[in-house]
């Protein structure tokens, strides 16, 4: 009678295990302009977005195929006027919905409409515990709206998670950030060290922290874990893979656990995979979801371990970290089939080490997303 984490069951046929989760990137439009944004540099314009009807069909197909959980994300999903319709479709398909939001634009009416449509929980971003610093990092005044949004979600009785992307400008505020989460009454605080994709990769030099900053923050999180009671919020520390010498088990494996649908209907094994230039990802407008998952070249290419080269191919950890991240391997070496350079066993690990130890980092200027075009 032990509950277990989902593990890929051994399928009797050759069909791959079905996905559990869908990241639905409903729009790239966003009121914030955070320098760490993992959206691609080439943002989808609004006129290219899937319609509400198309998203409804995505949810139907996903539910029938075995998806049980979705993050409704973006950009800022609240910018979709038909968001409640999409929530309704997910709920009808048996899919648990979590809204991933900046909080900007979430008023009482909007939230009650979403809750009535079946929204199950909310994950709210904050950039810093200090309002002015948070607004500065977000590239616009937004802290006050976030605070208000947190209160509304609490009042509605929905579970609330706080998400903080960590980098050079806010790692020293880790205690204040956790205290903020406690003040706002959140159930979960995700302290996510920046993953360097999209705009975050572009701004890497300015975002990378020092090893000392990271060590202090990690110690602080440990102290909080000891102090918080079992009733207190969960503290989740998303590791900084540039610094640990260990590759992250990216996405739980390529095409293994979850999939991403981008605003224009592109279906990807992970949100960063659009950065692989030769992937030629399929679009939900052209193919059924089941075919895309089971048979498309984009999903089968790095599934399992057959594609691996040394040192992954013979490594005892290959079924635990899946060779790390394909997009990071490509971004740093130009070859997506290489071992993730974050792994200390990678022949390219020196690339990561020199970035992590570069004494000139932190001097870069943040380049910010420009507003997504309407037309």
């Amino acid at each position: 009678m032990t509950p277990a984490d989902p593990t890929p069951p051994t399928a009797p046929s050759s069909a791959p295990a079905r996905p559990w989760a869908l990241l639905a990137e409903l729009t790239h439009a966003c009121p914030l302009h955070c320098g760490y944004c993992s959206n691609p540099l080439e943002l989808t314009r609004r006129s290219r977005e899937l319609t509400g009807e198309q998203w409804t069909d995505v949810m139907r197909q996903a539910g029938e195929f075995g998806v049980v959980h979705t993050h409704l994300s973006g950009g800022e999903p609240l910018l979709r006027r038909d968001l409640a319709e999409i929530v309704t479709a997910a709920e009808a398909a048996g899919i648990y919905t979590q809204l991933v939001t900046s909080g900007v634009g979430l008023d009482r009416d909007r939230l009650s409409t979403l809750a009535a449509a079946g929204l199950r929980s909310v994950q709210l971003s904050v950039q810093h515990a200090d309002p002015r610093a948070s607004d500065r990092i977000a590239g616009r005044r937004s802290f006050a709206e976030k605070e208000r949004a947190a209160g509304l979600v609490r009042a509605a009785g929905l579970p609330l998670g706080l998400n903080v992307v960590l980098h050079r400008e806010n790692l020293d505020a880790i205690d204040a950030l956790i205290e903020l989460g406690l003040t706002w009454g959140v159930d979960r605080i995700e302290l996510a060290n920046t993953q360097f994709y999209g705009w975050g990769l572009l701004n890497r030099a300015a975002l990378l922290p020092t090893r000392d900053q990271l060590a202090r923050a990690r110690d602080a999180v440990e102290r909080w874990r000891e102090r918080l009671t079992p009733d207190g919020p969960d503290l989740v520390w998303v590791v900084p893979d540039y610094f640990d010498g260990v590759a992250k088990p990216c996405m739980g494996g390529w095409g293994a656990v979850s999939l991403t649908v981008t605003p224009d209907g592109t279906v990807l094994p992970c949100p960063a995979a659009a950065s692989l230039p030769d992937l030629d990802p399929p679009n939900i407008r052209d193919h059924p979801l089941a075919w895309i998952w089971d048979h498309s070249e984009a999903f089968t290419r790095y599934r399992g371990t057959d594609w691996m080269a040394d040192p992954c191919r013979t490594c005892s950890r290959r079924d635990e970290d899946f060779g790390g991240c394909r997009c990071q391997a490509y971004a740093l070496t130009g070859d997506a089939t290489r071992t993730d350079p974050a792994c200390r066993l990678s022949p390219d690990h020196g690339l990561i080490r020199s970035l992590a130890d570069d004494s000139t980092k932190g001097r870069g200027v943040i380049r910010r997303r420009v507003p997504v075009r309407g037309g």
Partner: protein
Amino acid sequence: MKAAPGTDWRPVPAPAIVRRHDPVRDADLLILPERVVVLTGRAETVLALCDGTRSVRGIVDELAERFPGAPVATDVPPFLERLRTEGWLR
């Protein structure tokens, strides 16, 4: 016999949790904001009794009646306690 510590609370799933059957995998699931838990063995049978009206002792009695000879008195309270520690039951 003296009651084991913690057998008088009345377990109920935390509000964040959805319990459902997954027809695609023929599995019973707990779905949380950030994760999915697959229930194995008789976990679903036990959780179905966690409705906030039954005490742990009541749940044990009911299961003992349904599954004579099963080690419910020794296994079920620590199982429920573990789920409470995870934050999945209250």
